């Protein structure tokens, strides 16, 4: 994939970080249950590489805040850290696993776990020191967003397969 295509894929994913929450908020409780901003960031990391994934993870929530006021200012740094990690780990794992059949699923799982660990540590030591405990971490990052995790595990491999079929993810010739 050319550098320009990576950049434009990243740009489109950042735009989706703003648009998808709008679509999901039209459904009652859709935004809270399905974490719609995670989808484009993970996909950007997987399709366009770790560098684009990090940019998308940082710029996505920031642009969403600037254009829609969501997420709120107190949540913004936490989300930027969490999503930046998702994009980074998803892209990094794809470097090693892009030829494997289950590469996308493994990358997704590693990115989700690593991102949640980093986000939990960041909350525990930087953003809300002292307020983070193991049960709170498990509840807020795994239990309450279980539908989001399942949706990401279902949708991202589907979208990636469709993109592969259309030749979008093919490597540049020559």
């Amino acid at each position, binding site marked *: 994939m050319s*550098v320009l295509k990576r950049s434009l894929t990243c*740009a489109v994913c950042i735009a989706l970080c*703003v648009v998808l929450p709008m679509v999901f908020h039209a459904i009652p409780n859709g935004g809270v249950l399905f974490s719609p901003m995670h989808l484009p960031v993970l996909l950007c990391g997987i399709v366009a590489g770790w560098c684009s994934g990090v*940019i998308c993870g940082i710029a996505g929530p920031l*642009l969403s805040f600037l254009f829609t006021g969501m997420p709120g*200012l107190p949540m913004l740094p936490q989300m930027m850290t969490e999503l930046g990690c998702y994009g980074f780990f998803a892209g990094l794992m794809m470097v090693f696993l892009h030829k494997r059949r289950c590469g996308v699923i493994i990358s997704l799982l590693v990115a989700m776990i690593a991102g949640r660990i980093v986000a939990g540590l960041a909350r525990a030591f930087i953003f809300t020191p002292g307020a983070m405990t193991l049960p709170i971490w498990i509840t807020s990052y795994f239990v309450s967003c279980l539908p989001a995790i399942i949706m990401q595990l279902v949708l991202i491999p589907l979208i990636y397969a469709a993109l592969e079929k259309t030749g979008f993810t093919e490597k540049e010739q020559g």
Partner: protein
Amino acid sequence: MNMLGFYQRGDSVLHCISPSSLVTSYFILLIAVVMLSSSLPGIVLSILLIIILYSYGGIALLPAVRALWRFRAFMITIFLMNAFFQPAAEPLFSWWIITLSSDGMMIGLRMIATIVLVTLLSSLLTAVATPLKITDGLRALLHPFSYLHLRTDEIALIISIAITMIPVLAREGRYIMLSSRSRGFAVHGNKIKERVLSFVPLVLPLFLSAFRKADDLTSAMEARGYRGEYGRKRKKVHYAKADVLSIILSILVFAGAAALGGVY
């Protein structure tokens, strides 16, 4: 129609400000508005500021407010959630898990005010500046990071294209949502699996359409010989009095907001 992200031609003062001054002023004003929206007098002042800025920019405010009206259900939900579920020492009414309090109502009001004001300010930026102008402004702001060997030009291009894509994809998303609803779309079932699967026909076409757009844009830019910033010549920007004035006024508003934040 004044939808978020659409540029509107004009020759107002805001249209003529240089890109770097415009984007810098925008960020300073944005922080000021967020600070001001924490109190009721601050919200009133922010609304006045927005009205003044829109009139100086020659942009009609009403269509922008009408575009925001589409999110009324979301905003009402935010208000009600805060008004009825915030724990309070002196509740106005309390029953089971429901606690109606004036503090909760105030928090809800503040959140809605922040969302509305920030959106209106961003809407004004995209209405008075072309994506190219915003890219130039961002490039100027990000320039110090280039000393850390970050490719700031590319980051500015990515953000600028993302801003351009927001209204396009929002419209696409709305069409997909409406067409899905016309075919009887609903989030049905109590099981998580059923609820998740009901989202597939909504999200999948939006993603595929977005990636198709990225692909088309790549082909178009490559066909026109785009090679990044390599070998590009830029027109030298000349700063006028309006540029300096805009930044000074923004700093004054910011200082006022900080002072007011201390008072309230």
